């Protein structure tokens, strides 16, 4: 066991842990065998990680670099913070905002999804507006002090 662990590059205890982890996952996946949607689940599982790492991260990192290029230094945060808030809302509440699942939403709640886009825009405007107010107050205070 010790020899084996040395060869695989982790301690025996770590090797046991890793194997146990994979065994538990395999046991859990076993209950999906025969599920006609198994492949879809696997695609969404792996896809969630791939889309985050190779689409979402590069996208927001590039966006952030563009913001910093326009507004270097800490001042960028007056745009960065509200932009992150608006982006977070869009990401989390995407189905409502783009009206995905309209039929089930209506059947469940008796409401349509029409208001969400406007509410997201309004909430984002509030974030940018609040940030602008903070910026304005800080600039004003600095001028007063000078």
């Amino acid at each position, binding site marked *: 066991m010790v020899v084996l*662990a040395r060869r695989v*590059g982790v301690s025996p205890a*770590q090797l046991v842990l890793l194997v146990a982890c994979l065994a538990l996952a395999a046991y859990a996946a076993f*209950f999906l065998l025969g*599920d006609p949607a198994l492949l879809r689940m696997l695609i969404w599982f792996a896809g969630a990680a791939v889309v985050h790492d190779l689409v979402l991260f590069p996208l927001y990192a590039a966006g952030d670099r563009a913001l910093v290029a326009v507004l270097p230094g800490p001042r960028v945060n007056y745009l960065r913070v509200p932009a*992150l808030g608006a982006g977070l809302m869009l990401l989390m509440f*995407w189905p409502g905002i783009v009206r995905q699942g309209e039929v089930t939403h209506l059947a*469940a709640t008796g409401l349509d999804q029409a208001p969400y886009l406007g509410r*997201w825009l309004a909430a984002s405007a509030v974030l940018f507006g609040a940030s602008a107010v903070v910026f304005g107050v800080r600039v004003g205070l600095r001028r007063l002090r000078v």
Partner: protein
Amino acid sequence: MKFRSPLRGPWLTSVLGVVLLAALPLVIVTGLLDYVAYGPGQSIPGDVGLLHLPAFDWPTRPSWLFRLTQGLHVGLGLVLVPVVLAKLWSVIPRLFVWPPAKSIGHALERATLLMLVGGILFEIVTGLMNIQYDYAFGFSFYTAHYIGAWVFLAGFVTHAVLKLPVARRALRTRSLRAELRVPTSAPEPVDDELVATDPAPPTMSRRGALALVGGGALFVATITAGQTLGGPLRDLAVLLPRGRDDFPINRTAAAAAIEPAATGAAWRLALGARALTLADLLQLPQHTARLPIACVEGWSTVQDWTGVRLRDLAALAGVPTPASAFVESLDAGPFGRATLSAGQVLDPDALLALRVNGADLSPDHGYPARVVVPALPGVHCTKWVRSITFREA
């Protein structure tokens, strides 16, 4: 790819990791409790072998129990989304380390990391879509979210055990209190692959970064907590289905294909061999209880329900101490029937409700009669009830 943020480093990653290590178990346990709350034979997915908490009779007290567990599961899960995203941002340089695995053991660890990262994102995505009634993924939400949770749990425990010593070492390198008192953006020592060797000019202190993540969590709480806490906060849950006119529902009468004729004068409650009219039910002793309806989708609402105690109906049916009750709805859909345990039938506040807040139930709230039981998952508080079968012990 070149990572240049001066903020990345083992200390920052460890702070975020410790927050998740403290909070995620609560999300996991409340989720697993939800599986128990559905009751024996009614949990979805049905066969999960050993992958469940020890079964126990879901209690009816405190009446807000399911409201609490499910509200925490969904609410805390939502609030942690910015923390998870920040944690992933903080370790992303590791993803692109070349070669991808230095040894077989390292390859195994990276496989468990896919379970961890794929797992948490899969749970977040399916959970978020479910609470917004979007089923574009085309598989059973219950099955996928439950089995996915166990795959994630395996990866989470493994990661926590492997990385806890690393995190403890990293956390000892600088004091959180000092970091919060004095804003600094000097990079952490370059003895870790997370730390940029050629950092970009700082635009934010580490204190600012922590405030940003914490503020993100607080912001999400502000725009979501109202769906279960109610009160003035409910109006702030602007991006979630928060109900209309009175209080939220999870299935309209139209969606359940409830014909007005079926709930009118011709409606009868089948109680064993008996068939009771609405007038018959209204002549039985009426009881009022203030109880929550709490939904698996994370919203809840507390209302004053009035109707006949289920235990009175059991006595009327000649089964005063039933082992269980089987409730059927006019709704032919998947949740048109539910089995209640003895404890759920005999609770003094367990009702076949005929009125809510002093008025008849509206069609969408289950007119003419619906089940309301303390701490029972909302989906089992059957609406448009057409029969109740009390089963002998």
